[in-house]
């Protein structure tokens, strides 16, 4: 067996989803497309930051000449400079790299942990299930920003403020959402005939979970993932704004730049605050649109398939 069966199935599912998304009609299709295009632009920024940004994210001089402090847009500095002598355009581009890295890391981690916990908890049931549900509910009832603050506070002592620390602080917040959905679907699917059949054939629990349950209980994970990505981005910015995110010499953080811009705005200069904020809004909105679009595309009760014109063969008697 060269490719495991479940791997092949996953590939097929991605293709099927893409096909369905393409065939969907109306608003959902446009929402998805616009979201995907904007997200792609930011991902390109993230991937090619060193080539797109004219300067480094913590560069405050070039050729021995120091950049001006909080200057408006002008030659050499497309969007001006901020109070730390950094080039704002470069910070925005590099910030995309930080944001994409942190968000992808945290969403993947929380999805993997949440799905596995939910699957095991739902399949095994009993006291393990009860305790996990209780803990997850407690975690879920906590305000997400407060949790992120507590986690980043702890992690700072252990591993310092870094991209990894920021991603880990966000991970715990989103685990309960995957857990809930996967656990509840697993509990329902456990009674299904195909699971019973597999068990009757003597499949071990691990096989039942991996081969039979996993592909059937994870259908809503992509939607939760994209919506969480949008939320994680906002929380990352909030942590940065509170000064609990990533230090400015480690990476460019839009939230941190906004906290620095507070004094400039009070002095009447909106420039340093405008661009990082717009970047956050655009990416969060784009990710939300992708999530909403995906959920309408994947949910058959909401989907409106695109009608393609059917060319009927001409009737014989109408033919000349």
């Amino acid at each position: 067996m060269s490719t495991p069966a479940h791997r092949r199935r996953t590939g097929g599912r991605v293709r099927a989803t893409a096909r369905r998304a393409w065939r969907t009609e109306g608003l959902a299709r446009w929402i998805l497309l616009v979201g995907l295009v904007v997200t792609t632009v930011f991902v390109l920024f993230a991937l090619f930051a060193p080539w797109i940004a004219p300067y480094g994210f913590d560069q405050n001089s070039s050729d021995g000449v120091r950049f001006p402090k909080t200057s408006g847009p002008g030659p050499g500095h497309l969007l001006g400079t901020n109070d730390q002598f950094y080039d704002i355009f470069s910070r925005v581009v590099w910030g995309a790299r930080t944001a994409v890295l942190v968000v992808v890391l945290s969403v993947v981690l929380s999805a993997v942990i949440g799905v596995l916990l939910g699957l095991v908890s739902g399949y095994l049931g009993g006291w393990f299930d009860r305790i996990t549900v209780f803990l997850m509910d407690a975690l879920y009832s906590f305000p997400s920003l407060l949790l992120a603050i507590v986690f980043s506070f702890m992690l700072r002592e252990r591993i310092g403020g870094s991209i990894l620390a920021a991603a880990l602080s966000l991970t715990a917040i989103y685990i309960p959402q995957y857990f809930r959905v996967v656990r509840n679907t697993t509990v329902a699917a456990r009674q299904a005939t195909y699971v019973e059949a597999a068990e009757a054939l003597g499949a071990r629990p691990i096989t039942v979970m991996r081969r039979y349950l996993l592909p059937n209980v994870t259908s809503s994970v992509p939607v939760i993932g994209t919506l969480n990505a949008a939320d994680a981005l906002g929380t990352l910015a909030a942590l940065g704004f509170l000064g609990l995110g990533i230090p400015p010499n480690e990476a460019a953080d839009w939230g941190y730049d906004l906290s620095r811009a507070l004094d400039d705005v009070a002095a009447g200069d909106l420039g340093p605050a405008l661009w990082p904020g717009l970047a956050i809004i655009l990416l969060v909105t784009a990710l939300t649109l992708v999530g909403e679009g995906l959920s309408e595309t994947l949910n058959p009760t909401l989907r409106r398939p695109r009608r393609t014109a059917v060319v009927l063969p001409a009737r014989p008697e109408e033919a000349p």
Partner: protein
Amino acid sequence: MSPASGSLPRYIAVRLLLVLPMMWVLLTMVFLLLRVAPGDPVTAAVGDKLGPEELAARRAALGLDRPLVVQYLEYLGDVARFDFGATISDRRPVLDIIANQGGATLTLTLGAFLFACAIGIPLGRLAGRRRDSALDAGIRLVGVVSYAAPIFWVGIMLVGLVVAYVPGWPTFGIADSETLYYVPDRTGILLLDALLANDGVSLVDILQHHVLPCFTLGLLLSGVIIRLVRINVIRALDEDYVEAARARGIPERRVVRRHAFRNALVPVITVIGLQFALTLSGAILTERTFNWPGLGNELVTYVTARDYVAVQGLVTFFALAIVVVSVLVDILNALVDPRVRY
């Protein structure tokens, strides 16, 4: 559906009994996160200022040299007596912080709810009535953007606008320094103190300071209300009793106002309560943006100072508040909607 299982007092009793395990789980989580996981709190907060013997003395005074199980039981006992400890860095009892700073957070969030309802209910109603029109699409877009825009960025931009177009309007803090000096502290809530002191000038000053932060936080919350009122108005307009009202020849405006809208508002009350977590997160950020002397601002200050006891005390207080609010919302919900009492 026996009458006994559906009775209101029984539902409330069960709900109140569930408070204790819920609080226990949250408190245990806070303890695990803040006391077990990190290294030594005393060194983290004041390690660079004191010598090794003084540090050991501080540790002993806080009970940090005892086994974790003992510390855990002591923590639960302290919380049961409403003792949240005293900060390591400046030795303030956390309860004092809550009493002094809690009022500012309270008036901020209440003001924000007023703004949120004033913006969200009319817009949601309009969008629901004109479903799928350009107006509806526009209002929904406002809802999405109000969720996507970081609240602190909205606050910063509003400050910029006010500085440019309304010179002299206060943008930071809860009051001018003279007001803070003249208003006597009685209740811990500055707005109420000014009212009690019958000090009109101070009252106007404090209210002016409230406008910008409350509006900012209100915008964030209004997105939720718009969405909810819209969907409820749409649903209510589909109901048979609305159809019946139309059939009796009642004009559409009146149908919307008297029949659909009223029933659409009922769930809003409870959902507003359920948005407590969002409000708390929003309040922390708003307070930081406007240098508002509330609990969120205190929390971030102590996080930055790496003061574990202060952070633990404040987070514990927030956890208790979450449990209390969720119980109140559930009971309110049961009073309003008989279907809830299962």
